[in-house]
């Protein structure tokens, strides 16, 4: 009886429960939330992240190549849709952080330059998790990974701002800890023509080193400490999604094993960076920042 209820639920929500992702993975959580607004007339193109395991469980048409082809296959699908005269299908091009920051960075930039009509999503778990936790361009400063065992020395690439500079119609940052906000941003993206980019931080208990039960809590801390600020840039105008006071970054850093190596100086450095970013963003709230 309960099983039937759930089977019906999986059909209606267009995602099957029980993916092969790790317990507490933010990947299936992201798709669960996204599919609440995407609707049946959706084609998803994408591959790459650990969260790819979740893509096997969505119940809308989906195809993938490898993570070196992010946005490319979607570009082709887009052209096929135009050739067939279809303008009623939402095309999602999905990528993890490894693809977005590194191997497919140029591809995403080019698709943005062509203003391809798609929603490009980055599902960011901040390292190459699928292959066993190696650093990516989106791994934060100081984080442990197997290729940065003493902590990453370089900074996290700011892809949302880089893509905003391409003058695309819509850029947003989001978090699975704030699902209503994410859904609102997806719906907004669906209503706009052209290349839209939504960058969503998702938790990885395995790679970030914490108890899976705290997956949403830790992700929420990332937003509440302003390590992962949430905003939208629509036609070049910045709108902050949250303007709350910032909790100290130590709350976020101490909650994860991957930051265990950080010393006081490094934590202060991170706090200063986050503070500076926060004041800059708040001072630009409501202004046109891309010209």
């Amino acid at each position, binding site marked *: 009886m309960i099983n039937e209820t759930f089977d019906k639920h999986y059909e209606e929500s267009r995602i099957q429960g029980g993916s092969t992702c790790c317990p507490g993975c933010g*990947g299936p959580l992201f798709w669960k939330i996204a599919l609440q607004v995407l609707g049946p007339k959706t084609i998803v193109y994408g591959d790459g992240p650990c969260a790819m395991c979740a893509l096997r469980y969505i119940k809308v048409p989906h195809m993938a190549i490898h993570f070196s082809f992010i946005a490319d296959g979607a570009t082709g699908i887009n052209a096929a849709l135009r050739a067939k005269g279809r303008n009623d299908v939402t095309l999602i091009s999905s990528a993890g952080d490894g693809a977005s920051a590194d191997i497919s960075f140029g591809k995403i930039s080019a698709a943005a330059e062509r203003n391809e009509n798609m929603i490009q999503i980055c599902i960011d778990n901040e390292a190459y998790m699928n292959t066993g936790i190696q650093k990516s361009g989106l791994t934060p400063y100081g984080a442990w990974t197997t290729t940065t065992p003493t902590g990453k020395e370089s900074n996290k690439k700011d892809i949302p701002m880089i893509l905003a500079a391409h003058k695309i119609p819509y850029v947003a940052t989001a978090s699975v800890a704030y699902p209503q906000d994410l859904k609102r941003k997806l719906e907004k993206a669906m209503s706009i023509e052209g290349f839209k980019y939504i960058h969503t931080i998702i938790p990885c208990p395995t790679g970030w080193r914490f108890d899976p039960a705290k997956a*949403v809590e830790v992700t929420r801390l990332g937003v509440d400490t302003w390590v992962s600020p949430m905003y939208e840039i629509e036609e070049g105008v910045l709108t902050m999604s949250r303007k709350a006071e910032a909790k100290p970054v130590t709350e976020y850093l101490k909650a994860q094993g991957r930051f265990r190596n950080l010393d006081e100086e490094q934590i202060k450095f991170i706090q200063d960076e986050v503070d500076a970013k926060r004041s800059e963003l708040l001072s630009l709230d409501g202004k046109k920042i891309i010209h």
Partner: protein
Amino acid sequence: MCQLYCPESTVLLTEEKKVIFDYRYCKGCGVCANECPVNAISMVKEGTQ
């Protein structure tokens, strides 16, 4: 909250405000228990009850 945040969609809040679980697919991650504002869920290791 549990239904909202369960990564696997294996927790549902029924119309009668009961919480039901799909034990076929639940992975025991514990997010639901952690997020519940009224501590209504407890995680029990499989085989110990």
